[in-house]
């Protein structure tokens, strides 16, 4: 089953879209996503992928072209990063509100200014409320697997929502990893043929994206909200089916060595793997610590998350983005809201780290854990701490 290759993660993500047999790719190149769309252009030009590649003049146009393509019933993929994601921002809401199942890989990148091409989650957080299903990968394998799952989830008749697969720019996009590439025949079996039920058809005219006066807008938004919340069960089922077919299982909240751990760290994205190495080290030294990683960012997995922290005394959340003038880390702020009404909850400590591509090492996470425990015991007059910033 599958074959193991050493491949740059960006190329593997492009090949995952090829395995999913996409009909249309509309994309605009931007660092650090460039290699994904360059490779897709190559695959189409060389005849390996029978698809329409639409070279557009901007990300706003890329997403707009994707909407038209899905509305016509075509399986559609795109990718972007940082500033590009921001430029397509308004169209993202249109995709989710019109229930158009586009799949997009996002090579997470810090937002300007100052100009940075390196990875953090400021772009990811800025699109939090766009109504897209959002899955976060920690390594190349997870990015490949979840691009394949994303088509299954997005096009499920009960879901019909666009899906973003987040992978950290450079940390993942530009490294060469050993990746199990699934076989075409297996992916064909796993993803049902695309059948968007409302595809444009001159014999059955209808109006898409119409005007909604105040008398109907709330009802439309409520139906969208119910739909994305209900998608969680289908996402979980899709991951389960994927595991049965390919042997790799995914969950809304992933736990690592959390059994009986009184202290838990919570992270999202590629630096989770560094945090795992820290947990290994501290466990060897006899400390009871575990790591939670949030895989499903939207819809937020409230039940699974509350269950995962139910025995913890201290929860150290490490964000990779800032909410300026707000509560510090946007991830931690959601974690706090998810637990606020719970009778039993851990002490929550918030750190912001790894902004604009700043590396956090194993020792770095170790310092975060020790400082986190100290704050949990003694308290702090700050909402959060920025790890590693020069004072």
């Amino acid at each position, binding site marked *: 089953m599958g074959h193991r290759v050493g491949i740059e993660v960006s190329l593997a993500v492009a090949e995952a879209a090829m395995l999913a047999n996409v009909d249309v790719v509309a994309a605009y190149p931007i660092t650090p996503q460039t290699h994904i769309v360059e490779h897709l252009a190559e695959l189409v030009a060389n005849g390996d992928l029978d698809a329409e590649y639409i070279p557009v003049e901007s990300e706003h146009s890329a997403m707009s072209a994707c909407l038209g393509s899905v509305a016509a019933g075509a399986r559609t993929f795109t990718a972007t990063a940082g500033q590009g994601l921001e430029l397509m921002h308004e169209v993202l809401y249109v995709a989710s*509100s*019109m*229930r*158009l199942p586009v799949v997009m890989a996002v090579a997470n990148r810090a937002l300007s200014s100052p100009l940075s091409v390196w990875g953090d989650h400021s772009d990811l957080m800025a699109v939090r409320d766009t109504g897209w299903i959002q899955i976060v990968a920690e390594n190349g394998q997870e990015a490949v697997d979840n691009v394949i799952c994303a088509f299954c989830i997005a096009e499920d008749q009960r879901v*019909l929502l666009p899906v973003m697969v987040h992978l950290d720019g450079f940390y993942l996009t530009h490294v060469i990893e050993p990746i199990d590439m699934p076989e075409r025949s297996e992916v064909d079996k796993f993803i049902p043929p695309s059948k968007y*039920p*409302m595809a444009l058809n001159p014999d059955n*005219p*209808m*109006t*898409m*994206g*119409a005007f*909604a*006066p105040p*008398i*109907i807008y*709330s*009802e*439309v938004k*409520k*139906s969208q909200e*119910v739909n994305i919340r209900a998608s969680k069960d289908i996402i979980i089922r899709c991951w389960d089916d994927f595991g049965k077919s390919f042997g790799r299982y995914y969950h809304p909240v992933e736990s690592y060595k959390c059994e009986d751990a009184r202290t838990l760290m919570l992270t999202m994205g590629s630096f989770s793997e560094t945090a795992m190495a820290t947990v290994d080290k501290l466990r060897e030294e006899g400390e009871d610590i575990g790591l939670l990683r949030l895989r499903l960012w939207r819809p937020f997995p409230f039940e699974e998350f509350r269950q995962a922290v139910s025995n913890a005394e201290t929860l150290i959340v490490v964000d990779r983005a800032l909410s300026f003038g707000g509560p510090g880390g946007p991830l931690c702020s959601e974690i706090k809201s998810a637990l606020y009404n719970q009778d039993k909850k851990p002490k929550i400590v918030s750190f912001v780290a790894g902004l604009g591509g700043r590396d956090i090492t194993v020792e770095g996470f170790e310092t975060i854990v020790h400082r986190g425990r100290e704050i949990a015991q003694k308290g702090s007059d700050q909402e959060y701490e920025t790890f590693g910033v020069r004072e």
Partner: protein
Amino acid sequence: MAKSEGELTWKDIEIGAIVVEPGNTRQYKTGDWRSQVPTYNFDRCIKCGMCQLFCPEGCIEQNAEGHFEANLFWCKGCGICSRECPTAVITMKDEEE
């Protein structure tokens, strides 16, 4: 349309709020927007149809006598017909409560 907009619940919303019934904007009463209403002195009307051509709402119809008259369900009271009429048939008057 089985239900009017005001009766639809969130459960009745089509996927992506797509409007599956063509031409249902006819049910949208834009006459509510009006603050002035066209009035007519048909003695001067030469039945040229200029008002119908210029009406941006497309709500002017020819009546049994051949005169052109706005359908007040859709007429927004913009007054363009009154301005364009070559024989000054149409006078805009304030809408009364």
